């Protein structure tokens, strides 16, 4: 993937497929620690220990008829190639937490890219799922909780109404600009 935000989109699709009703996305940058942490957590169906092993290391499993996915291994590889690491913490019937961290200054770290495009490809397309987005960069932070949006909008106005999506877009853009001071976030270029 050219941008880490695309990995975020791909990994979050797993949470959606897992039947999650609540998904957390954390994008945390810390210059002092030279670290970018990305965490996607969900309350979906979860995985057994054995399943997790297979998913993380698809190359080491004996061939089965089931097609092997590469989304998780891609994300893991991206982290490990950028001086970071990756972990999955999953409990069957409870949910899953996928965490990857990257050395911000590492030459092989892909840029974060357009994280707002990722969120706008997720939230309005899954109006029945709640999302909690936490974004932080060097002491500045903001968050978005669609449960709070829902509370104000009431039962009649869905999260994917055009007006709501427009508000969401502007909310994300303004807050992201505040955080990055106009410079593209997580940019390696």
């Amino acid at each position: 993937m050219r941008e880490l935000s695309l990995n975020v989109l791909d990994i979050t699709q797993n949470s959606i497929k897992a039947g999650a009703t609540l998904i957390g996305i954390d994008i945390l940058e810390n210059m002092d620690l030279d670290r970018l942490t990305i965490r996607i957590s969900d309350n979906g169906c979860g995985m057994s220990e054995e399943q997790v092993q297979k998913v993380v290391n698809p190359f080491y499993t004996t061939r089965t008829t089931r097609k092997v996915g590469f989304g998780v291994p891609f994300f893991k590889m991206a982290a490990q190639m950028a001086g970071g690491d990756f972990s999955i913490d999953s409990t069957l019937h409870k949910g899953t937490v996928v965490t990857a961290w990257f050395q911000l200054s590492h030459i092989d770290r892909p840029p974060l890219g357009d994280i707002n495009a990722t969120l706008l490809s997720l939230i309005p397309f899954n109006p029945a799922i709640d999302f909690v987005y936490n974004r932080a960069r060097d002491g500045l932070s903001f968050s978005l909780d669609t449960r709070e949006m829902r509370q104000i909008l009431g039962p009649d106005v869905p999260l994917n109404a055009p007006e709501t999506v427009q508000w969401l877009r502007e909310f994300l853009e303004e807050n992201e600009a505040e955080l990055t001071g106009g410079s593209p976030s997580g940019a390696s270029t």
Partner: protein
Amino acid sequence: MKSLAELQAIKNKVRANVEMREGEASTRIVVGMATCGIAAGARPVLNAFVDEVGKRQLSDVMVTQTGCIGICQYEPVVEVYAPGKEKVTYVKMTPEKAVRVVNDHIVNGNVVTEYTIGAATK
């Protein structure tokens, strides 16, 4: 700065319009968003469809996502379902192609044959 409080105004405004929108979407544009689709550029294609459909206020057109369509080498893949018509599969899509598909196919009813899987496999 945007605040949650503004959603209150949106709520009041949208509720008044909700009935107008309740008609079933007649055309569905489905974008493949499996790992290979995303890696090949499905996200900007999806957003181009959303923008163009929104701009033209095509309220009976719905843009949705799906997982694996099974033809990796042709990603990004987009399927168009219209009532009474056969499914049209567009391959190797780009945001520019998406705009043309909305204009020619969705609005004017002319399938953009050169972007379809039929043309790609010839």
